[in-house]
């Protein structure tokens, strides 16, 4: 068996940025960590859970709660860490902005994993702007070693300067692996809780004093940052000076190894003295940064300098060495011998056997659709279902459905339901449902309960009966919770039972009262099949009607005049294609597979 990482206390190992953050948390004495999963941050808490038993770690119902519980632990003098994707920080913004005033007793590191290029996100927000608005320290690692080191630096800064620290990662840092020198864990005693009303109750008379301290703290940190090794000048050819941070630094080193570089590791507050020194040292300046011109705008407005940046580097999307090379050294790109070939795209799809498929197939068949949410089931918007029409943020499916009904009335709203996963419902859907009951809405909310937070790779949540470390925990009862909100019509249905699923939609959408449908079947990642079973087509019976293609199952492709069912992809305990075939041309042995 592979050794747990907490048994390794020296050497150099290949770690992803996320694994390196987990390692840093362990080495630098973090006592407690909490997070809600979100790509690209999820593996931080997963790794802590799997490898580092010395850290008390847990999944929180959402990012706001995750930040609040670590804040409490910090108040009691524990070193703490919370991790979230960039949009998770929006959810946690309320505690963040005031925690900035209150400060840290035990060190607080909050990881924001931004997603330039939107590999797995609904927007491209740059949380350096968020950290600056919250007046907290921002650290930006450029590889896994720095990710680990900056957890340690961050905890120390947090305690020394009485401030939360935002560790701003990006997808390319989180999910790239590079070598990390590792060390042993430093055990740091928890100081213990001591009440301090003036420090932790920001009534206006206290908060005004707190704000003064925050401004003073930022000035002190800027001066400190100019001396810290977090920010550094790499002196080279002084005819070109590049100011950069994060992953962009690596691209700059790749394409412009001869240039002078100001590498910013602490991007809030900025180290003005060091920046001024760099500006005076070089002839021309280029800012190379991903997404927002954060460094560029801040430094240009402070020093009123002429420099290139956003005019040659795109604000949209992820950078790469090619883009940076074209911007910094135009005309020097090497020979590209082979051209891009125009090929069919390969978008993600609901997995074979996915329980969500049954619900979206039925909605589509009924000419109905949904307001959607964040999760695998967002893929219900894809052809052939086209049965999900809005996505805003975690939990919004319910509020959006209510709003449509308020604007149009139930009749004109037509056949729309809200589609939300059980984990997302617990995260921030329940308040929307309370609103629907309270304000007299009549729509149908579908909670797609697959007993797993699936989109992020399969994490436990309060409805699954297990915690982050796989230990048994109380099960949150969705039916009781929905009933307690005041919903009178609650149906639970197996989404693989297509006739029942369809009938339930028909009846609930026709009702002029609020209703909740819980579609319940475990995610295929949570189900280990007892045996292999593949659906078989009888080509003699098949009439080529293509109804099975309406399932959008990746295991079924069209082969000239009949379906071809892949034995590699067909999922054992699913027989939806058998159910939809009008001439019984598809059969499958389902014994022992329910």
């Amino acid at each position: 068996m592979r050794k747990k990482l907490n048994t390794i206390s020296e050497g150099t190992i290949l770690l992803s940025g996320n694994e390196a953050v987990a390692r840093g948390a362990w080495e630098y004495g973090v006592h407690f960590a909490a997070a809600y999963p979100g790509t690209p941050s999820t593996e931080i808490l997963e790794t802590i859970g799997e490898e580092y038993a010395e850290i008390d770690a847990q999944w929180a119902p959402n990012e706001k709660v995750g930040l609040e519980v670590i804040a409490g632990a910090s108040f009691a003098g524990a070193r703490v860490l919370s991790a979230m994707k960039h949009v998770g920080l929006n959810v946690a913004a309320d505690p963040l902005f005031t925690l900035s005033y209150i400060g840290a007793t035990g060190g607080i590191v909050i990881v924001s994993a931004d997603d330039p290029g939107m590999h797995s996100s609904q927007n491209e927000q740059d949380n350096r702007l968020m950290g600056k608005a919250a007046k907290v320290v921002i650290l930006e690692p450029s590889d896994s070693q720095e990710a680990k080191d900056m957890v340690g630096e961050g905890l120390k800064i947090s305690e020394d300067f009485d401030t939360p620290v935002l560790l701003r990662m990006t997808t390319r840092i989180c999910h790239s692996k590079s070598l990390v020198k590792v060390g042993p864990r430093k055990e740091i005693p928890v100081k213990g809780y001591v009440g301090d009303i003036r420090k932790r109750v920001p009534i206006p008379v206290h908060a005004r004093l707190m704000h003064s301290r925050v401004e003073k703290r930022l000035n002190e940190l800027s001066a400190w940052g100019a001396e810290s090794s977090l920010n550094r000048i790499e002196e080279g050819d002084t005819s070109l000076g590049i100011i950069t941070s994060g992953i962009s630094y690596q691209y700059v080193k790749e394409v412009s190894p001869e240039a002078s570089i100001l590498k910013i590791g602490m991007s809030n507050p900025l180290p003005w003295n060091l920046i001024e020194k760099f500006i005076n040292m070089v002839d021309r300046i280029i800012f190379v940064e991903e997404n927002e011109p954060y460094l560029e705008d801040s430094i240009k407005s402070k020093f009123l300098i002429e420099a290139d940046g956003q005019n040659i580097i795109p604000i949209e999307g992820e950078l790469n060495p090619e883009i940076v090379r074209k911007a910094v050294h135009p005309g020097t790109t090497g020979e590209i011998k082979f051209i891009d070939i125009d090929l069919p795209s390969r978008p993600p799809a609901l997995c074979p056997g996915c329980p969500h498929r049954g619900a979206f197939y039925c909605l589509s068949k009924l000419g109905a659709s949904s307001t959607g949410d964040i999760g695998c089931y967002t893929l219900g918007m894809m052809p052939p279902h086209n049965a999900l029409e809005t996505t805003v943020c975690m939990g919004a499916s319910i509020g959006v459905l209510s709003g449509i009904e308020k604007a149009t009335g139930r009749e004109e709203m037509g056949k729309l339901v809200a589609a939300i996963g059980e984990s997302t419902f617990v995260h921030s859907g329940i308040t929307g449902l309370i609103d629907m009951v309270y304000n007299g809405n009549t729509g149908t909310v579908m909670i797609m309960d697959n007993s797993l937070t699936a989109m992020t790779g399969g994490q436990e949540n309060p409805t699954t009966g297990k915690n982050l470390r796989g230990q048994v925990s109380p099960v949150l009862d969705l039916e009781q919770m929905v009933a307690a909100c005041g919903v009178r019509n609650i149906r639970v249905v197996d989404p693989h039972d297509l006739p029942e699923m369809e009938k339930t939609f028909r009846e609930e959408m026709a009702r002029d009262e609020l209703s909740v449908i819980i579609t319940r079947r475990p995610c295929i990642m949570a189900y280990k099949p007892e045996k292999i079973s593949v659906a078989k087509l009888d080509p003699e019976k098949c009439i080529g009607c293509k109804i099975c293609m309406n399932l959008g199952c990746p295991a079924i492709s069209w082969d000239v005049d009949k379906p071809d069912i892949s034995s590699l992809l067909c999922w054992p305990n699913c027989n939806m294609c058998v159910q939809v075939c009008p001439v019984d041309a598809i059969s499958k042995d389902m014994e022992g597979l329910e």
Partner: protein
Amino acid sequence: MKSVTNVIICGTGGQGILLASEVLCAAARHAGNDVKKSEVHGMAQRGGSVSSHVRFGEKIYSPIVEKGSADLVLAMEKMEGLRWSSYLAPHGQLVACDLKINPMTVNTGSAEYPDVEAIIKKESLPVKLIPAVEIADELGNPRVVNVVLLGAVSSHLPIVEKHWEMAIKERVPQKALEVNLEAFRKGRELSG
């Protein structure tokens, strides 16, 4: 010798791309290199295109391979190989599994699966197609396709056989080790 080797491993979700790139990284480390690799998780894995960039050499900065600079593209699915062919360096080699997996866009009729062999010919692409699925089936384990392919590209890379085998031993569970080592050797025989 060139100071940096650039490799892209690509295919579709669930084909063992991440394991293959882990093995490559471990082998490159045993050979004494600095190593970086990069891939994207999450939405990309629900049957979509997946790719892993691996770079090794004396000192590596960028974790991603620049267009026109890959020494090797290893594709677990042939159309995915074509998708990354513009990343090949002028001297680069594309090795692809002779396997077709239809994307949903083809299943739903909004696109057609291309004639891969015709495109290879038309664009004069340096492609070697490997019947890795058949070889894995002969070995009695369809899951070792990725390791057959690693074997098939192993002699294109500046890593000796001993380091490859050490890497496989570290990354593959004990009970599947023998069949994986066999898969690697079968693949390596093809690379001649």
